[in-house]
C-alpha cells in the first residue's frame, strides 16, 4: 500500500513533467510565416533531435546547422533538444497538432517510423530522394529502413526517412589476451572456432555474452546468418517469402549455438546476465571476446585498459546491423523544402566526415580522413559490410514483442532445458502469430 501510493505519486509527477515539457516544446515551436509575405519562403527551420551534443551525431549535426545557416543567412534555425522517450511516446499526438517541427529525428523500423508513415503523419520523400540522389548514396540494405509501405512495413514503398549513420554487430577482442596465448585474428568460422578451442584449452571461456537481454539473440542471429543469404533475410525481416523455422538456416544456426554452449564457448550461467554484465566482464578482461554492436565502441574506448580491437564476425557476409535513426519531415511541417535541403546537408561530405572522425559510422563518409586507428578500423569494417550490402537488421525486428520471445527461448537453450527443435518451435510459433497480426490484424 505504502509503496503503491508512492509509485503513484512518482508517476503523477513524471506525467506532469512530461506534460509541462510538451507544453513548452509546443509553445516554442510556432514556425515560419511569421512576418513577411506569407507565400514566400519560410523564415524559420525547426529541428528536433535527441542526440547528446557530445555524441558523434550531435557534433556532426551542429556542423550541418552551421553549413545551413551559411547558405541561408535570413533563416532562423531553431534546434530543439528532445529526449528519445519524449518523442517516442508523444510523436503520434504532437504530430497531429499544428506546432510541429520541420524536420525531426525518429527511430527506424516497423513499430516506429513505419507507424507514423502508415498513419500519414510524415511526408513521403521519394521525389526528394531522386532529386538529391539519396537513393544512390543510400543503397541496398541501408535504404530498407528508409522505405515503408502503406501498412508501415519497411523495405518497400515510398521513402519516408533518411539515415545519416549506421550500426553493426561484430566481434570485439582483447588484443592483450590474444597476444598472451599467441593467437591470430580469425577470418573464417573454422578459424574462429579454432581460436575459441585454444582459449578453452587454456581454461579461458572465450565469449562474453548475456542471456537476459539482446546479446545472446544477436549471437544466435550471427550463427543463423552464417548459413543464410539475402533472400532468407528478406523473408525473415520483410515477409517476402515464408520462413521455415525448421529449414536449413535456422536449424543450422540454432544447432551451432547449442554446440557452442555445450562446448563451453560461453559460460553456462548466462541466462540472467544483462548486456551491462557482459560489457563490464569484457572490459575487465575476464573474457577475450564479445560479440556485440558498434554502440559499445565509445564505452570501450574510454573504459578498457587492455588493448582491444574489433573484427567482423568471421566468414559472415551478412551481419546484424542497420542504418541509424532517420530524419523525417512531418506532414504538417511549414518549411518542408528547407527541411529537405537540411537533410541533404547532413549527407554532405563535410558532415559525414565529422561523423567518421568521431566514430559515428557515417553512411557516406570517407574513412581516409580518420586519424584514430580504432575509429578507422571500426569504420572500414562498416564500409566493408556496406560494400557487400551486408546489413541484416536485428533478430527481434520482424514482429512486435519478439524480443522477449527470443530472450526466453534462448534462455531455455542456454540452460539446457530446451533442445534445438523445441527452441525453434517456440520461436516459430510467436513469429507466425506476430506476422499474422501484422499482415491481417
Amino acid at each position, binding site marked *: 500500500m505504502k509503496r503503491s501510493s508512492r509509485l503513484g505519486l512518482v508517476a503523477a509527477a513524471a506525467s506532469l513533467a512530461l506534460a509541462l515539457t510538451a507544453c513548452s516544446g509546443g509553445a516554442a515551436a510556432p514556425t515560419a510565416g511569421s512576418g513577411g509575405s506569407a507565400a514566400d519562403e519560410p523564415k524559420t527551420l525547426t529541428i528536433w533531435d535527441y542526440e547528446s551534443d557530445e555524441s558523434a551525431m550531435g557534433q556532426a549535426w551542429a556542423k550541418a546547422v552551421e553549413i545551413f545557416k551559411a547558405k541561408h543567412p535570413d533563416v532562423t534555425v531553431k534546434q530543439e533538444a528532445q529526449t528519445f522517450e519524449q518523442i517516442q511516446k508523444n510523436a503520434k499526438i504532437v504530430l497531429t497538432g499544428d506546432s510541429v517541427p520541420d524536420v525531426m529525428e525518429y527511430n527506424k523500423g516497423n513499430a516506429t517510423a513505419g507507424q507514423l508513415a502508415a498513419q500519414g503523419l510524415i511526408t513521403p520523400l521519394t521525389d526528394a530522394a531522386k532529386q538529391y540522389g539519396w537513393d544512390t548514396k543510400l543503397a541496398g540494405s541501408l535504404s530498407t529502413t528508409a522505405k515503408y509501405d502503406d501498412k508501415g512495413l519497411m523495405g518497400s514503398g515510398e521513402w519516408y526517412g533518411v539515415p545519416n549513420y549506421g550500426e553493426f554487430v561484430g566481434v570485439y577482442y582483447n588484443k592483450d589476451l590474444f597476444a598472451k596465448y599467441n593467437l591470430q585474428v580469425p577470418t573464417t568460422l573454422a578459424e574462429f572456432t579454432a581460436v575459441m578451442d585454444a582459449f578453452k584449452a587454456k581454461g579461458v571461456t572465450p565469449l562474453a555474452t548475456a542471456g*537476459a537481454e539482446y546479446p545472446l539473440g544477436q549471437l544466435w542471429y550471427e550463427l543463423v546468418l552464417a548459413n543464410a543469404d539475402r533472400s532468407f533475410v528478406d523473408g525473415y525481416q520483410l515477409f517476402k517469402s515464408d520462413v521455415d523455422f525448421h529449414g536449413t538456416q535456422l536449424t543450422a544456426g540454432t544447432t551451432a549455438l547449442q554446440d557452442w554452449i555445450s562446448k563451453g564457448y560461453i559460460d553456462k550461467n548466462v541466462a540472467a546476465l544483462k548486456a551491462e554484465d557482459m560489457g563490464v566482464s569484457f572490459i575487465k578482461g575476464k573474457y577475450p571476446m564479445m560479440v556485440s554492436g558498434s554502440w559499445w565502441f565509445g564505452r570501450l574506448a574510454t573504459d578498457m585498459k587492455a588493448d582491444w580491437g574489433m573484427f567482423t564476425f568471421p566468414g559472415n557476409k551478412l551481419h546484424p546491423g542497420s542504418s541509424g535513426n532517420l530524419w523525417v519531415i512531418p506532414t504538417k511541417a511549414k518549411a518542408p523544402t528547407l527541411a529537405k535541403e537540411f537533410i541533404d546537408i547532413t549527407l554532405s561530405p563535410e558532415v559525414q566526415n565529422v561523423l567518421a572522425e568521431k566514430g559515428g559510422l557515417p553512411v557516406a563518409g570517407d574513412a581516409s580522413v580518420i586519424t584514430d586507428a580504432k575509429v578507422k578500423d571500426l569504420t572500414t569494417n562498416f564500409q566493408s559490410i556496406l560494400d557487400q550490402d551486408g546489413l541484416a537488421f536485428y533478430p527481434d525486428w520482424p514482429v512486435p514483442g519478439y524480443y522477449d520471445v527470443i*530472450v526466453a527461448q534462448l534462455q531455455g537453450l542456454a540452460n539446457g532445458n530446451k533442445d534445438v527443435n523445441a527452441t525453434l518451435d517456440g520461436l516459430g510459433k510467436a513469429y507466425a502469430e506476430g506476422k499474422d497480426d501484422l499482415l491481417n*490484424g
Partner: protein
Amino acid sequence: MTTTQAPTRRRRATWVPYLPYLIPGVIAFVVIIGYPLAMNVYYSLFRWKGGLAPMRFYGLGNYADLLADEAFWTSFRNSISMIIAMVIIPTLIGLVLAAVLFDYLGRRFGPRVASVLRATYYLPQILPVAVAGVVWNWILNAQDGAINVLLTGLGVADPPDWLGNPDLAMPSVMLVLIWVQVGYPVVIFMAALQRVDPELYEAAELDGAGWWDRLKAITLPQIRPETFVVALTCTVAALKVFAPVYVLTRGGPEGTTLVPSYYSFLNFFDKSKVGYGAAVATVLTIVIIVVAGVILGLQARSERREREGR
C-alpha cells in the same frame, strides 16, 4: 444558516449542503480511477495496436484467448508465490520481530534500541525498488555476485545461477520480496502493540505466563485488526506486483517469473496488443477486488465475533 430554516425542511437538508464538498473527491475518483477503469474494460473488447491504429471490435474474444494462454496462467500461478513472499512470510516474521522488539528488546535495552532496529527493518521499504533491485541483481549475479563469490571462496565448485535457473529464479525473487516487505508489518505491529494495555502483560506475567504464552494469549488477539490491514494491503500489493520483477528478471528466465502486471505491460507496450493487455489488466482488477472483498468479509466476521464474545 440552517437555524433559520423550518424544522421539516431542515431534516431533509441535513445532507444536501454537504454535497458540494464531495465534488472534489468525486471528480478525482472519476478522473483517476473511474474513467481509466472504464476505458480499460472498453479497450479489452477490441483488437487494437494503440495510437491512431484502427480498433476492431472483438467482443469477449480477448478473454477467450486468455483462457488458452499458458503465459497468462503461469503469471497468475506466480501470484500465489508472490502472496507467500509478500504476505504470509513477512506477516509471520513481522509478528515475531515486533513482539521481540517490543516485549523483549524494548524492555531490556530501552525504547531507543527498539526504534533503531525497527527503522532498520523498515529501510528496504524506503529504498526505491529500482535501486534495491539493481543491488540485489549484483548480489545474485551468477558470475561475480556477492553470494557466489562467497560460495566459490568457501570451495563450492559450481555455485547456483540464482536468477538464471528457472527452478531457482522464483525462490530468489521471493527472497528479495520478503526482504523488501518485512519492515512494513513490523512497523504496523509495533504501533499496534503500543495500544495494548501493559496491565494485561503484567497480570499474565504474575500468573506465570511465558513469552510464548503472552504472544498467543494477548499479543495476537489484541492486534488482530492490524493483522487484517496488513494482510489486505500486502495481498493487493502482491497481486499487482510489478517493479521488483521488472528490475530483477523481466519475467524470465524462460518466462518462469512472469506476473500478471508485467504480462499486461508486455502486451501493452512491447507487443502493441493493447486490447489483450487490457483484458489481462481487467482480469487482474477483478481478482484483486474479489480477494480484497473476501479479506474484508473475514475481518468483519472476526470483529462481529469479538463483539459477541464480550
